C-alpha cells in the first residue's frame, strides 16, 4: 500500500516537474525571441518573406471564414431577435460580436491550424534532417534565424487578418440584412460604426497579436524539440494545433475579461 502511494507521489512529482520545465522552456524561448529581436542582426528580408507566406497566404481563407461568420451570425441573430421585435438591433449585435470576439477568435483558430501546423512541420522536419544542427554548427542561432521572423510576421499579420475578417463579416451581414430583414445598407453601416468603439477594435487586435504569439512560440518550440523522424513531425503538428487552439480559447476568456474591466 505504501509502495503504491509512494509511486503515485513520485509520478505526480515527475509530471509536475516536467510541466514546470516545459513552462520554463516556453517562456525561455519567448524571452530569447524578444532578446534576439532587440540585439540584432534582424533578418528583415526573412520577415517580409514570412509575412508574404504566412500573412498574405492566409487572406483567401480569412475572407471565406469572415464572410461565412457575417452571413451566418446575421441570419441567426436576425431570426432570433425578430421574435422579440429586435431586428433593428442586428447590425449592432453582429458588429460588436465580430469586432470583439468572432473575427479574432475564428481567424486565430484557423491560422493555428494552417500556419501553426505549417511552422511546426517545417521546423520539425528541419530538426530531424539536422538542418537545425547545421544552423547551430555554422555559428548562427536557430531562434534568430527561424523563430524571430516567424514570430513577428504572425504578430503583424494576424491582427490584420482579423481586421480583414471583421470587414468581410460586416459586408456579409449587410447583404443578409438587406435581403432577409430589409435593413438598408446606410442604416446598417451607421449602426455598425456608432456601436463599435475604439476599444472594441483594440480588444480584437490585441487578442489577435497575443494569439499570434501563442501560435508561433508553441509551434517553434515543438518544432525545435521534434525527434523520431517523420512520425515525430506528424505528432508535433497535431500537438501544436490542439495545444494552440485550446490555449487560444482559454486566453480569449481572460483577455476579454481584462478588456471589459479596463474599458
Amino acid at each position, binding site marked *: 500500500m505504501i509502495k503504491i502511494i509512494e509511486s503515485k507521489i513520485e509520478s505526480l512529482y515527475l509530471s509536475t516537474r516536467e510541466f514546470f520545465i516545459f513552462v520554463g522552456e516556453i517562456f525561455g524561448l519567448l524571452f530569447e525571441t524578444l532578446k534576439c529581436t532587440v540585439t540584432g542582426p534582424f533578418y528583415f528580408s526573412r520577415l517580409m518573406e514570412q509575412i508574404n507566406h504566412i500573412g498574405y497566404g492566409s487572406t483567401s481563407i480569412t475572407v471565406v471564414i469572415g464572410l461565412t461568420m457575417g452571413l451566418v451570425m446575421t441570419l441567426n441573430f436576425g431570426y432570433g431577435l425578430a421574435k422579440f421585435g429586435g431586428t433593428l438591433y442586428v447590425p449592432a449585435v453582429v458588429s460588436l460580436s465580430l469586432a470583439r470576439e468572432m473575427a479574432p477568435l475564428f481567424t486565430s483558430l484557423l491560422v493555428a491550424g494552417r500556419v501553426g501546423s505549417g511552422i511546426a512541420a517545417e521546423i520539425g522536419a528541419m530538426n530531424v534532417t*539536422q538542418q537545425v544542427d*547545421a544552423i547551430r*554548427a555554422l*555559428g548562427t542561432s536557430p531562434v534568430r534565424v527561424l523563430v524571430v521572423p516567424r514570430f513577428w510576421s504572425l504578430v503583424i499579420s494576424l491582427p490584420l487578418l482579423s481586421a480583414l475578417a471583421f470587414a468581410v463579416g460586416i459586408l456579409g451581414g449587410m447583404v443578409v440584412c438587406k435581403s432577409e430583414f430589409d435593413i438598408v445598407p446606410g442604416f446598417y453601416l451607421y449602426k455598425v460604426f456608432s456601436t463599435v468603439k475604439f476599444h472594441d477594435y483594440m480588444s480584437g487586435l490585441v487578442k489577435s497579436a497575443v494569439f499570434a504569439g501563442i501560435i508561433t512560440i508553441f509551434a517553434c518550440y515543438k518544432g525545435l524539440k521534434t525527434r523520431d523522424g517523420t512520425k515525430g513531425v506528424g505528432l508535433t503538428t497535431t500537438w501544436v494545433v490542439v495545444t494552440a487552439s485550446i490555449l487560444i480559447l482559454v486566453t480569449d476568456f481572460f483577455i476579454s475579461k481584462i478588456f471589459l474591466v479596463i474599458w
Partner: protein
Amino acid sequence: MNEVILELKNIHKSFGNNTIHSGINLTLHKGESLGLLGGSGTGKSVLLRSIIGLEQIDKGEILFSGKRIDHLSENALIPFRIKISYSFQSGALFDSINVFENVAYPLFEHTKFSYNQIKDKVAKMLKLIDLEGKEDLMPSDLSGGMQKRVGMARAMILNPEIILYDEPTAGLDPANTLNVVSLMQKLKLKGLASIFVTHDIPSAIMLCDRIVVLHEGKIAFNDTPEKFQNSEDPIVKKFITSTKE
C-alpha cells in the same frame, strides 16, 4: 610535430543509462588528419558533435588552441564554430534554398563581403568541389554525393582551422567516394586539420596521418595508419575483419 590545436581531456558522455564515452583523451595537431574509426554506436559522431558543442559532455574538458570551449554558451561558441567546421553525414543542406544560398550562408552571416564578392567566393568553392555552375540547383536536385560535397563546401567557405567530417563517404558509390576523398585530400594539402569519422578503412588509411579506434567508450588504438594495418591488437584486428566482411 605541429602545435596542438584541439585537445580532449577525459571526456565522459552518457545518454540516460547508456554510457557512450568513459574517459576519452585525444589531441589533434595543426594540419593533421585524424581518422576516427569504430563500430556502430561507439560514439564517433557524438564525439564530433561534442567538440562543436552540439552535445554537452558530462565530464572532461575540450580545448581549442588552449582555450576551454566545452562549457561555453551558444553565443560564446559562435567564434569557435567559425574556426571548427562540421560536415554532416547527410550534408544537412537547407532544403528550401539553392546551392548558392547554402554555400553562401556562412558568408552572409559572418562577413561583410558584398554580394558580388560572395558570388565569386561561392563560384570558386563550387569549382573546387567539381560542381561549377550548379549554383541554381536545389538540394533535392542533387545526388547524395553532390549533397555531401556541397555540405563540405559550406563547411569550408569561412576557411576554418579544423574540419570535422562525419562519415562523408557513407552510402556513396565508388566514383562518388573517390570524388569526396579527392576533395578531402585537396583540403588537407591546404593545411587544414581534420577529424574523419568513417567505417571506410581504405579512405582513412589513404587520407589520415593517424588512426584512432573507439571501443566501449574508450580509445582502443591511436597510432599511424601503417601500425593500424599491421596491428596485432585483437580489437583492431576484429574491426578490420568485420569491415572487410
